[in-house]
């Protein structure tokens, strides 16, 4: 599973992109964030405030209960500020 980080989530985790292989019990977005938060102190800090994190699965906005599976591209980023 490919994880992408943008804006301050990239700054905080120190990575823009990583390939991960979460255990089978990680089946949805909420579960994935919990699991990612356990990868390092930097990840934990970046993901502390879940309200501030938006998630896209395969380039579609996703809710905490939306499913994730091996092979997905999952992006984590703050609320958008373009325009």
């Amino acid at each position: 599973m490919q994880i992408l980080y943008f804006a301050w989530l990239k700054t905080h985790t120190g990575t823009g992109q990583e390939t991960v292989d979460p255990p089978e019990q990680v089946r949805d977005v909420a579960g994935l964030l919990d699991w990612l938060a356990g990868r390092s102190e930097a990840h934990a800090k970046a993901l502390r405030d879940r309200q501030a994190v938006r998630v896209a699965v395969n380039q579609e906005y996703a809710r905490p209960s939306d499913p994730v599976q091996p092979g997905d591209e999952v992006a984590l980023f703050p609320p958008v500020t373009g325009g």
Partner: protein
Amino acid sequence: MIRVQREDFEIGAELDALTRDNPGVGGLCSFVGLVRDLHPDARTPDSESGEGRVHGEVRAMTLEHYPGMTEKMLRRIDAEAHRRWPLEASLVIHRYGRMEPGERIVLVATASAHRQAAFESCQFLIDWLKTKAPFWKLEETPDGGCWVDARVGDDAAAARWGRDDWAAE
């Protein structure tokens, strides 16, 4: 039509191309967003501290985006505008990369037989773009780099046009 690019664009050339050879266009509305030299929340010089420092002075701005998803979202927003209004043509150009104050960031333009449709759809495009297209602004100030926070006002502006069924929250 949508475009995501690093380079600047020429407003006149873009708008001319949008209406050329289409005498059915009666009104063309456009919006250009530019880099300001002050953060939107900046206030006048701090008279309390006596330092006279302007809060939020912006030296440059870097726009990051999510290649692939950005284009997908812009195309969807553009299609939604055509679904809601009788448009003859539309254009969204959004830049990414580093820009200095005064530089153009985004151009949104809509052409219709009638001006009300042009105005409404143009405002709709920029309102939804601001809350749904994956772009993030990093401001360079004298104190260093700072990721711009999303504005509650932008959510309210986007919500005027109803909800979509594809952008979570």
